């Protein structure tokens, strides 16, 4: 499986947010998108998910997911910055929106939900959860349909090391299973697990391969 993102354009009024965004990824790859706050990373994810209308193509094995909504909702899993959860309900209830009962039990016993450590706070109300718990639960909800492409908008922002570790473990597993991960981040540590790095600046996407140290990255963000 491979994905091709071709010439994605998005404007709000006369302001161009995304201009000719292109990137490719193959099965089992992880791509990181960096950029300043407000550079358009979240907008890019929204366009790819079909939440915002934009121009361009999002191809998966040659099929345009921008046009094929059903296929997109089947293949793509999306975790936005704010965890999409119902605060008054427990983790279990939130998961029930996306999982069948049997499936949920199975995943909690030995599947992805166990890997994310959700079984530990299964009966806790979302409003009583920490940021890390919410993030893990949001990922657990997003992968209920076993997507092949995972779009994560700052998945580990403001999380402690243990939470980050759990999410990193899951992402490594997802990658091993042939999934394609596209994530936005401000966390240098997270880049280790990524195969390619892109920087979104001035509405355009620039590829920066093999840059790992903070100084050169900051230089790139400033100068490009």
């Amino acid at each position, binding site marked *: 499986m491979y994905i091709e993102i071709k010439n994605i354009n998005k404007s709000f009024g006369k302001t161009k947010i995304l201009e000719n965004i292109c990137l490719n990824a193959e099965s089992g790859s992880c791509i990181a998108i960096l950029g300043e706050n407000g550079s358009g990373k979240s907008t890019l994810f929204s366009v790819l998910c*079909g*939440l915002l209308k934009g121009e361009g193509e999002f191809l998966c094995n040659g099929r345009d997911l921008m046009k094929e*909504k059903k296929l997109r*909702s089947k293949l793509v899993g999306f975790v936005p*910055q704010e965890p999409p*959860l119902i605060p008054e309900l427990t983790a279990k209830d939130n998961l029930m*929106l*996306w999982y069948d009962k049997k499936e949920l039990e199975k995943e909690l016993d030995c599947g992805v939900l166990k890997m994310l450590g959700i079984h530990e706070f299964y009966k806790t109300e979302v409003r009583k959860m920490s940021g890390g718990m919410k993030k893990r639960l949001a990922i657990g*909800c997003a992968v209920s*349909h076993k997507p092949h492409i995972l779009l994560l908008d700052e998945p580990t922002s403001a999380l402690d090391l243990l939470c980050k570790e759990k999410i990193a473990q899951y992402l490594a597993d997802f990658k091993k299973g042939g999934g394609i991960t596209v994530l936005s981040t401000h966390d240098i540590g997270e880049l280790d697990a990524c195969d390619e790095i892109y920087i979104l600046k001035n509405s355009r996407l620039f590829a920066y391969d093999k840059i790992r140290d903070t100084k050169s990255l900051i230089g790139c963000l400033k100068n490009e």
Partner: protein
Amino acid sequence: MNKVIRYLALNIKRAVKFLPAMLLFTLISGGCAILLLSAMLSSDSIEKQNLKIGVVGDIGETFLNVGVETVQKFDSSRYYVSFLDFSTEEKAIDELKKGNLEGYVVIPEGFTDSLSTDEVKHISYVSANTPDSITPMLTKELVNIISEFVLESRKGISAVQYAADIYGVETDSYDLHMTYINSVLSRDSASQTKETGIGNGLGFSTYCLISFLIILMLLWGIVSGAFAIKEDMALPRVMKARGINEASQIFGEYISFVMITVINLAIVLLALSFSSFALSHEAIETPMVAFITAIKLLPCVCLIASMQIFIYELCRNRVSAFLAQLLCSLTLCYICGCFYPLNSLPSIFRTLAPFLPCGLAFDYAAEVFLDEVNIFSLAALTVYSLAFLIVCIGCRKHRMGRDKI
């Protein structure tokens, strides 16, 4: 479809969590309503509710005094009138400014004597600049009654006196006057009050009951505001990305919102069916009938819930949502006659009310209580509810496309 049902089920579960808060609120507001009703119906407050009209000028004259006294005791119902004597107009103006009087009448000197001559002096009425509502209208009517009453009775007595003089019959004018008053206007038979009901043919207690229910339905929407408000759009967005569109989302939230309101309404009506209210209302005479009435009121609940969901959809945070709901609820309740009977409000309100959601809900509830449900009212409620929901779906689409992710 499966996910929509699951979302609905989760929302119902969520809504049930708001039930205790709503019931507690009902208990408190019910208690307040009972206290208010008791205060309204107690004799002390009736005294306070009397219309007070000042009288400036000479009412020492027998005929005029009798006229004023008669009007004062004209009606023994709660619409009681007190006339207060003032020696000067300045004192009456002072009291009027303090709000202690509805208005005052000035009786010119020699008013009664002028009635028997061609040059009739006129009584003038002075009131505060109040809107065209029941109190000033009633007061003006009363002043007209005094003038007409005194004028006509005096004319009649003068005619009898004139005839008596012609035929050489000796008469005493005071006796004549009293005989006239007793035969023409004996107090018991002077007026016969028939109450046709407060708007829509409702009795006072039914009117109060329906008003209370409509106000409660509106206020429940505020109490359960946290249920309906969408402060961040993360979940709706993800749901849309996963195939649950805006219409399905609104459907799930709306149905659960309606359900929780109907449950509350049923509980209130069931509680009322055990109270003395049940004796005078067929619609809640037994618990079973009360439950059926709650079901019959479903269209009202649907309309009010759709309106509230729409308002919540427009607001971005809890404070603005709370204020918007409160303002809308109070305004609609006032305009549509939930606080005061519609026929005591200015005509513009009477014209507007049948077209406003709250007015439609009130009329339909009245039809349910009178057991005269009109299919057109039902259709109007349905159309209004659907219109709110369609606009609501549009708002959510708009918010998803606009708000920052």
